[in-house]
C-alpha cells in the first residue's frame, strides 16, 4: 500500500482493474436472466399492444412475432426503430392486422427528454393510441402542422414527427413483406 501510494498511476490502474472485474463478473452472472427479463417484458408489452388476451403470440425472430387465434394468423408484431428522435434511437413495437391496419404501437425504448418527449410512452400519455386503426391509404402521414393528420404533443415536435415517420415506414415495410412473413409463420406452424 505504502509503495503504491508513491506511484499514483499504478494505483489508479489497480483500482480500475478492481472496478472492472466487479462489473464484468456481475454482468457475466446476470446476463442470461436479464435477457430473459427483457423477453418477458417485451411479450407482456406485445400482449398489451394487441389488447386481446385470447390470442397467442408466437416468435419468429427477436424483432418479429405473429399472433394467431384458432389457427388463423391475426397479424404481425414487429420492431421498428427511428433514428430521428430528439435524443437517439426510438424503438417501438407495431402490431398490424393481415389487411395492413395498425392494431397498436408501443414505444419500448427511447431517450427522449423526461417530462416532455416521453409522452410517447403509454404509461405517460395516450398520444400513441392516435395510430390505432390507421392504415397507409386513409390518411396523410405527417403532423397536422406539416399538413398531415396527426396532432403533435406540445414541446416535442421532433419526437412526434420521428414517430409518425417511423410508424409509416414500418407500415410500408409490413405491407412489402406481408407475403414473406405469412409464409414464414405458416412454416413454423407445421
Amino acid at each position, binding site marked *: *500500500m*505504502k509503495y*503504491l*501510494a508513491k506511484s*499514483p*498511476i499504478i*494505483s*489508479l490502474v*489497480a*483500482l*480500475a482493474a478492481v*472496478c*472492472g472485474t*466487479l*462489473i464484468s463478473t*456481475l*454482468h457475466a452472472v*446476470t446476463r442470461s*436472466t*436479464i435477457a430473459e*427479463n*427483457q423477453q*418477458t*417484458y417485451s411479450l407482456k408489452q406485445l400482449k398489451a399492444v394487441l389488447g386481446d388476451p385470447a390470442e397467442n403470440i408466437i416468435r419468429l425472430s427477436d424483432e418479429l412475432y405473429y399472433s394467431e387465434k384458432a389457427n388463423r394468423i391475426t397479424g404481425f408484431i414487429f420492431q421498428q426503430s427511428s433514428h430521428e428522435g430528439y435524443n437517439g434511437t426510438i424503438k417501438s413495437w407495431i402490431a398490424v392486422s393481415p389487411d395492413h391496419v395498425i392494431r397498436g404501437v408501443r414505444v*419500448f425504448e427511447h*431517450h427522449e427528454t*423526461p*417530462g416532455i418527449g416521453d409522452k410517447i410512452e403509454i*404509461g405517460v400519455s395516450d398520444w400513441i393510441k392516435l395510430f390505432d386503426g390507421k392504415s397507409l391509404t386513409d390518411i396523410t402521414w405527417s403532423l397536422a402542422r406539416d399538413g398531415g393528420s396527426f396532432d403533435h404533443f406540445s414541446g416535442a415536435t421532433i419526437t412526434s414527427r420521428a414517430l409518425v415517420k417511423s410508424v409509416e415506414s414500418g407500415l410500408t415495410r409490413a405491407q412489402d413483406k406481408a407475403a414473406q412473413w405469412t409464409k414464414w409463420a405458416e412454416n413454423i406452424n407445421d
Partner: protein
Amino acid sequence: MTSAREITIEGLWTRNPAMVQLLGLCPLLAVSGTFTSALGLGLTTLVVLTFSNLFISLFRALLTDSIRLPAQIMVIASFVTLADILLQYWFFDLHQRIGLFVALIVTNCTLLGRAESFASRNRMGYAALDGFMMGLGFLLVLTVMGAVREILGQGTLFSNLHLLLGETGREFEIRFWDSGFLLMVLPPGAFLTLGCLIALKNKFSMSLHE
C-alpha cells in the same frame, strides 16, 4: 472526532443532502413524481452511496491528491453500473421506468461530496455509516416529495408499487380523487414541494433553538 451519533444526525437532519446541502437536485426533481419511483431511486442511491463510501475509504491510502477525484468518480460510476445491472436483474419493470435516472446517480453531487469530504478521510465503518445516513436522508426527502406530488398531482398514493414489491404491491394503491393538479406532476411542482419542505424544516429548526 466524529461519532456515530453525530454522523446520523448530520445525515438525516443538520446536513441533510437534499434539504440543507441542496445536492442531487437533478434526480430529486426528476423522479419525485410518484412515491414508487422516488422510493426506487432513493434506495438505489442509498445503496450506491454506502458502498462507494465504503470502497473509497478502503482504498484511501492509495488515493493521493493527484488521482483522488478521478478515482472517486470511477468508483462511483462503477457502483452505479453495478446497481443498474442489479436493478435489471431484480426489478426489470421498474428499471424501464427509472433506468434513465439511474445513470444520473453518478452526477448526484452528494456522492462525490461525501466521498471527497468524508470517506477519503475516515475509517471504513464511519464512511459506510455516513454514506448510509446521507443516503437515508436523501431517500426520506425524496419519498416525502414523491408522496406529496403524487397525492396532489395524480390523486393517488403508492400507485405502481407492484413494480417494486411484485403483484401484492397493487393492493397498496390508495385513490383520493380522480383528477389531480397537473402542475404538481410537472417540474415546477417539484420545486414548490422542495421549497415548502425546506421552509418547514427551517421553521422547525428555529423553534428548536429558541
